[in-house]
């Protein structure tokens, strides 16, 4: 592997990332399953780095899941997104950052469509006006939250309390970075590092002290799909894709998988449970556990010393304790299943083949 060669390619895929003043749009999946990730993101950028990230309580889903599941036409998504832009205009922001890769892909696709077909944009102006009497202008910059984490990677590493280093061996943690397909495969030029050797997460991991695992099925989809997991008859496809990735990364014994996509995060995490319960097999460095799957925001927060249970890492299927131990993160075992204000959430049933604590 020639790192210099990669750098050469990365240099061709650099995007301009404004440092401050963003309108923030949440992810449907993430705010439901791993709400700590978005919370941590906002806390880091606002309170740790003092940046202006605005979140409007009136913003909605982008409609991406419905669009990709063929249940709504493209115009619907366009109108929904136009409304988000309108909210952004209203709040006085020009930069738009989305938490979700599906969303990022859809926003990029729509912006590109409007650029090539101004008549469609015109039509959406009309539709939005008819729907809610709103006007909009397109954002100047469209970012994904992982772009921001990449952009702020040195700020994060400056405040790193637990870098991605195995405290027992002193070796960098072996990190698998998984990029959501819609981040760079649709428009490589709108990503950091391109589609073949994306830099966005690799850069973050390197800045935080970890080493990136380059395994053969690195580029492969997590298996999320939309029509794949939504329809039970197709769900085997989704699972098989994920299985293929795990089989490919298995020889590298990764300590952690970092993703930038809520969907990938969810499926890489949950399918480990299904694989374990159907085949008895677990992956990763610690036998009987799986490989923890965290989002870039969660990793950043963990490195910066956020409490894992406040971050909501107990919401992940694969137990993070082995990772926390490797990183040397201090945590209170008893708090794992306690809610806000110490409320007892109860201990989940333990699966047969994969340990959860």
């Amino acid at each position, binding site marked *: *592997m020639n790192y210099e060669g990669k750098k050469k390619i990365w240099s061709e895929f650099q995007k301009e990332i404004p440092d401050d003043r963003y309108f923030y749009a949440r992810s449907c999946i993430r705010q439901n399953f791993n709400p700590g990730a978005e919370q941590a993101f906002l806390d880091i950028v606002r309170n740790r780095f003092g940046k202006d990230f605005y979140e409007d309580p009136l913003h909605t889903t982008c409609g991406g899941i419905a669009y990709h599941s063929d249940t709504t036409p493209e115009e619907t998504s366009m109108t929904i997104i136009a409304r988000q832009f309108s909210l952004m205009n209203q709040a006085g922001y020009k930069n738009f950052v989305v938490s979700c890769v599906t969303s990022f892909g859809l926003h990029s696709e729509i912006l590109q469509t409007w650029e090539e077909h101004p008549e469609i944009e015109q039509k959406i102006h009309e539709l939005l006006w008819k729907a809610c009497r709103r006007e909009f202008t397109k954002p100047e910059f469209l970012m994904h939250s992982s772009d921001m984490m990449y952009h702020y990677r040195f700020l994060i590493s400056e405040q790193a309390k637990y870098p991605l280093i195995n405290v027992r061996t002193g070796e960098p943690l072996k990190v698998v970075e998984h990029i959501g397909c819609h981040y760079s495969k649709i428009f490589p030029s709108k990503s950091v590092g391109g589609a073949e*050797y994306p830099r966005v997460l690799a850069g973050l991991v390197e800045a935080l002290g970890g080493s990136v695992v*380059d395994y*053969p099925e690195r580029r492969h989809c997590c298996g999320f799909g939309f029509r794949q997991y939504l329809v039970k008859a197709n769900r085997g496809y989704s699972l098989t894709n994920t299985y293929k990735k795990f089989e490919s990364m298995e*020889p590298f014994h990764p300590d952690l998988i970092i993703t930038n996509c809520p969907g990938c995060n969810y499926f890489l995490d949950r399918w480990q449970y299904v694989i374990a319960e159907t085949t008895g097999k677990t992956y990763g460095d610690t036998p009987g556990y799986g490989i923890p799957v965290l989002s870039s925001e969660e990793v950043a927060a963990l490195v910066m010393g956020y409490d894992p249970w406040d971050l909501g890492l107990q919401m992940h299927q694969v137990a993070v304790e082995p990772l926390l131990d490797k990183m040397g993160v201090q945590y209170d075992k008893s708090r794992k299943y306690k809610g806000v204000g110490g409320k007892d959430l109860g201990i989940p049933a333990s699966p047969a083949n994969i340990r959860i604590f």
Partner: protein
Amino acid sequence: MELTYQQRNVVIIGGGPAGIEASKALDALGYTVFLIERENRLGGHLGRWDRLFPYGTPAEDVLGQMTASMGRVKWFTSTEVTQVNKLERGYNIILSNGLSVLADALLLTTGFSLFNASKKEEYGYGIYDKVITNADLEDYFSGIPVPAVDNPRRIGFVHCVGSRDEKVGNRYCSKVCCATAVKQACEIKEKFPDAVVYCFYMDLRMFGRGYEDMYLEAQKKYGVIFVRGRVSEVSEDKDGHLFVKAEDTLSGKPLRVTLDLLVLMAGMSHNRAVDPIARTLALSTMEDGFLKPKDSLTAAQASYCTGVFYAGACTGPKTLPETMAEARAAATSIHEYLQEQ
């Protein structure tokens, strides 16, 4: 005043096979020929190649034979054209060595550039140690150490790298890569007889005399395995071997194989060095950058610019014999042109 041939100057830009052949032909016709080459030796890409398809002729012999007697041709190596000025009749060519030539006719034999294989990022040229190009493999055959070639047991050849690929802006077929791949597959099989050699092709374009025999020999004698399907992506496994994905289109199934060496058949791209001259003289180019001849059938050696002629791969991918034939055709065209002046 009537000019004699000797007093007529022809400047040829590009000292590859086309330039050499044309310069000799024009010299024989009695013109004063200036052959300009920016590299430090004549021969162009031919100088880097070890053996030539389809009969395995050593390139060195061919080149040696071509340059054995250059006659009165005035040739300059390590020399670039710094300026071309159009005069009322002819051109004023200023060279980097300070020389200025008044040319009655100008012949462009600027050839091609080998496609930069690292542009096909998914193949990992420049990133994975075991991915090399056809030119690298020729270096290896010539005896230049290529560390990637380390007793490989499983070898792959990827045809059409940078050819027939709109994503890299080259829609055309580079013509020579299929034959080169088959030639190299046989050659590497000779070096490593126990190795398994795969050729990943889209179409096998074995159009020339002797090419089909070479293909048959590759199959039957060397046991080269041909897989119809373009390699989609390459990754490295834990031990640094290459994990290659393609579709075996003939069985309609995805195909996976781990290799120790992958050779990318980089095709021909237009030579960017000719772009400034083309701009100065307002020469027509095609969308892929190659120079556009006046008429691809009846005036393939003529340009849209009076007194400027083309030969060889500057107008598109060509095989060596085609290039040589074009060079001789160009000499005739120039002779006719100058006769009429």
